[in-house]
């Protein structure tokens, strides 16, 4: 019996990373800006996305969404009311989306051709931990936080907030009623990711939506330049 050390030096999520790289190339070639939306359950990802899809449509942009949940197609049905193509991904117990699921759900998506899209939104499973490890081939990762969740949430979940390019504060319309400390929230988000873009929004009143859509348009133009 001989003992031997075998160096592997391999990423544990290599398979996911490779699939994600393939997706990213595909998205870039098609000219579609892809965003991965991550938050706790109940932050308001779906309401935020409903408004985003609706207003993008009003601006003449073409957007579609993939929406992840453990079970049910409730969110897909809600989002489809915006008129945008929407497809549900049920993970059946898995707490995050993986690149393979994205690839699979892009196949045979009736009426959707990536080349004819400006934006593709991927609404991840509600979870602030696990999705941070899985690259989905997105260009922009968006972390959402609602005013009811506590201003210190970014400090509690630094891995996710640090991996995000943009942060959305949702439910700003009730900020005052719930005693939301805006300055502390902004400070905490920036403590975790100093160069992050922050948007303060309300899906109900539409506050902050224009700045958010301008950001999307600028990011898209920037990628095309």
């Amino acid at each position, binding site marked *: *019996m*001989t*003992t*031997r*050390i*075998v*160096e*592997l*030096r*391999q*990423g*544990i*999520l*290599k*398979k996911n990373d490779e699939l994600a790289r393939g997706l990213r190339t595909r998205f870039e070639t098609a000219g579609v800006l892809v965003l991965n939306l991550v938050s706790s359950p109940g932050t308001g990802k779906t309401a935020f996305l409903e408004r985003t899809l609706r207003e993008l449509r009003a601006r003449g942009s073409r957007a579609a969404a993939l929406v992840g949940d453990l079970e049910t197609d409730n969110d897909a049905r809600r989002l489809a009311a915006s008129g945008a193509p929407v497809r549900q991904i049920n993970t059946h117990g*898995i*707490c*995050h989306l993986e690149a393979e699921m994205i690839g699979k759900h892009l196949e045979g998506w009736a009426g959707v051709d990536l080349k004819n899209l400006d934006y593709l939104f991927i609404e991840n499973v509600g979870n602030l*931990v*696990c999705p*941070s*490890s899985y690259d989905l081939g997105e260009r922009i990762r968006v972390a959402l936080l609602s005013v009811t969740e506590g201003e210190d949430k970014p*400090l509690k979940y*630094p*891995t*996710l907030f*640090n*991996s995000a390019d943009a942060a959305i504060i949702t439910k700003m319309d009730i900020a005052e009623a719930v005693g939301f400390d805006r300055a502390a929230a902004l400070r905490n988000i*920036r*403590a*975790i*990711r*100093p*160069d992050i873009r922050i948007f303060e929004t309300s899906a109900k009143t539409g506050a902050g939506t224009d700045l958010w859509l301008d950001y999307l348009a600028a990011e898209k133009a920037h990628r095309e330049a």
Partner: protein
Amino acid sequence: MHELSIVSSVVDTVITSLEKYPGARVTEVRLNVGALAAVIEDSLQFCYGIATDGTPLEGSRLVVNLIPVTVHCAACGRDGAIESLQSFRCPHCGEPAADIRHGRELDIDAIEIEEAEEGVKP
């Protein structure tokens, strides 16, 4: 709690790498896990026993090498480990630092195996 799927990937990768060493038994698996990898060592250890059961990795040790978060500071140009995950600032000059150089690792570094004696078929 995605540690079980992480550990399952580790087991699959290690088994594939054993193809070159027929009959070998794994005694140790060494991982490099960054502080920003969103993975908890206790959960990895807990899942490891379950995921290795009935495989050539059964009974092996899982060694987790935790890698601290290192940033490059745009202000002073130096690299350094941040003092806490709640504050991404340069440890030298205190400026906010977004350029992460280490801490996102989630890798299998190496495995230790016991090879079957020559001529012995597994």
